[in-house]
């Protein structure tokens, strides 16, 4: 191999010489002012051109020229940005300088080989077109085929004279997952749901079946089963089946994504039967059946929502909620800095805070839930909170719209000093009207309340929106903390958050600390406060006092 090189620094020249020696290449130097290297490459019989970039380099022109003479172009650049810019011109290799002779040698060899084998890669465009085509016909999250793909199968079954059962699986509250955890999480969960549904029917029914989504990207499923001599199942049978599917779906979501998410997914099933009718076009027949089954599923869903809202009203009336107080600990001293009050519904079906929030929102009970929880949270601990400890109270942006919340004062707080209360904002709903929200916050700050932002770093509450709120505390989500002692990506993210917080004059609280190694790691990264299972022995419970 012969390399024509134009270098700018002695260090690069030396490294290049060592590299050439190591790979047995002959090295020819071009003058530092040489513009068109390709001509020199032809004259010298070089198959590789190495170019240490100047600021004014016309990389595209060099690329073009090298290609015309069939030489490999290897670029050396002095910053990642320069490399990225140079990469746009598609050189055969680039090297981030300074680099070791070992690396330079490898990249020279690779660049030359690339030119030699370039001809063999014509079919890449075809492959990409095929992938695009396949993606159009399948849902991205689940890999399920879209309905048009399935129509030939369904046609075949109908023409054989079979009756088909169409089930519409309507999931409610999945959209909460998107609100709280982001669209990617919902896609994952839908993927899990699809697998669970498939698993269920594979184990269950002898007939053949196909599964699709109502719309690609949507969360409602359509299952068409081929059932010979089918008899329409009664409502009781459908409802029993729904419960069985729901159980399996919940189990799978809980295994993969945790209990909290599982409790959010409610499932309602509507059915319709499908029989051949020569007078009606097949597609129309199918779409009609889908609409019918969907309506039935939505009706059941509606009834169920009303029932749950009624349960919630009863729970509020009876105050069937108890409070837990999770300690927040200073990482350096392990002293208890304060407590976060967490509500636990006493009705088993309303235990999940996410679910309660969802039902409350639909039933217009958000403010009432908030009022009850704040009252209980303060009452439960106010006699035991040391004068230098803080009470972290969860509030939603919604709560700030509640006129009685804005009057949160001595009447609710009793002896607790507002300066000991930290309002912890969970961005369950995106804050849309920032100026207005800021106004509300300012009023609370005036009274001495402090402010924390919850779940930072996990969801899509970006740093920008955190900066907007100018909180006193930034709480890092458990997903950032678990196993942080062995995960370098998490360490890097937490480091970023800590320096960001310090720039803002805020303190960082790590949530979900479970092991001493995690505590040690976050302490070293400069995290000020921590909470989690590791400190369970310091927990307070309103019932413990009673």
């Amino acid at each position, binding site marked *: 191999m012969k390399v024509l090189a134009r270098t700018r620094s002695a260090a690069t020249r030396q490294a290049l010489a060592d590299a050439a020696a190591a790979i047995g290449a002959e090295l020819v130097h071009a003058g530092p002012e040489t513009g068109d290297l390709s001509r020199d490459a032809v004259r010298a019989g070089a198959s590789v051109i190495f170019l240490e970039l100047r600021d004014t380099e016309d990389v595209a022109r060099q690329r073009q020229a090298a290609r015309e003479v069939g030489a490999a172009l290897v670029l050396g650049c002095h910053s990642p940005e320069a490399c990225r810019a140079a990469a746009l011109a598609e050189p055969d*290799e680039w090297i981030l300088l300074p680099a070791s002779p070992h690396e330079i040698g490898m990249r020279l060899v690779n660049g030359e080989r690339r030119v030699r084998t370039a001809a063999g890669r014509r079919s890449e465009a075809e492959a990409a077109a095929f*992938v695009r085509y396949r993606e159009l016909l399948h849902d991205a999250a689940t890999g399920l085929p879209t309905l048009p793909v399935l129509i030939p199968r369904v046609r075949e079954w109908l023409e054989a004279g079979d009756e088909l059962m169409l089930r519409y699986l309507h999931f409610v509250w999945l959209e909460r997952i998107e609100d709280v955890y982001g669209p990617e999480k919902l896609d994952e969960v839908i993927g899990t749901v699809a697998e669970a549904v498939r698993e269920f029917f594979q184990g269950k029914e002898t007939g053949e079946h196909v599964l699709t989504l109502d719309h690609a990207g949507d969360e409602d499923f359509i299952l068409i089963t081929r059932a010979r001599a089918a008899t329409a199942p009664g409502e009781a049978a459908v409802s029993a089946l729904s419960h069985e599917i729901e159980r399996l779906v919940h189990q799978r979501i809980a295994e993969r994504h945790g209990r909290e998410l599982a409790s959010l997914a409610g499932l309602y099933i509507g059915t319709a039967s499908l029989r051949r009718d020569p007078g009606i076009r097949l597609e129309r027949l199918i779409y009609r059946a889908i609409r019918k089954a969907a309506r039935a599923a939505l009706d059941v869903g509606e009834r169920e929502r009303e029932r749950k809202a009624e349960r919630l009203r009863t729970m509020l009336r009876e105050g069937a909620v108890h409070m837990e107080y999770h300690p927040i600990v200073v990482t350096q001293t392990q002293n208890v800095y304060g407590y976060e009050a967490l509500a636990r519904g006493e009705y088993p079906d309303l235990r999940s805070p996410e679910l309660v929030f969802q039902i409350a929102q639909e039933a217009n009970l958000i403010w009432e839930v908030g009022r009850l929880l704040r009252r209980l949270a303060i009452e439960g601990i106010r006699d035991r909170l040391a004068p230098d400890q803080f009470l972290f109270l969860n509030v939603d942006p919604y709560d700030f719209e509640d006129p009685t919340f804005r009057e949160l004062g001595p009447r609710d707080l009793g002896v607790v000093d507002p300066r000991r209360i930290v309002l912890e904002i969970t961005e369950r709903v995106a804050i849309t009207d920032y100026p207005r929200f800021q106004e509300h916050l300012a009023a609370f700050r005036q009274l001495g309340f402090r402010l924390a932002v919850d779940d930072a*770093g996990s969801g899509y509450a970006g740093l920008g929106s955190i900066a907007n709120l100018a909180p006193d505390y930034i709480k890092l989500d458990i997903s950032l903390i678990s196993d942080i002692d062995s995960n370098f990506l998490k360490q890097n993210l937490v480091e970023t958050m800590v320096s960001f917080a310090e720039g803002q004059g805020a303190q960082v609280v790590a949530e979900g600390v479970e092991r001493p190694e995690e505590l040690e790691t976050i302490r070293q990264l400069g995290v000020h406060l921590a909470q989690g299972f590791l400190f369970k022995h310091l927990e307070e419970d309103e019932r413990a006092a009673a």
Partner: protein
Amino acid sequence: MAAPRILVVDDDPDALDIVQAYLESRGYDVATAADGTEALARLEEVRPDLVLLDVMMPGIDGWEVARTIKNHPEFGDTRVVMLTARSDFTDKQRGLRAGADDYIVKPMRLEDLGRKVERNLEASRRSA
């Protein structure tokens, strides 16, 4: 002790070649895959200790591959290191959600890559 096994996944064959050559020169046992589907298909056969995963690939992208590996009942403990062109906060958050253990920003020096690979293998040995 057998050499640690690394699965390198990148749709750019040249990037793949040079990383493979470099890691092999460091004594690792290296397998490659040209896209996400192939990577997942080869997991069973290769049983890597560490997967080096390019983010930008056609079809199933690197995040998706990482997620699948990390959710896998059998391969969930495999170290996953992302190769990414961006390293801003949002991009790292995506890595976090996908379950990645570390990341390397492209363009990178091969020596830096080697160091990151080494420290991740070290960490996985410690936590095993």
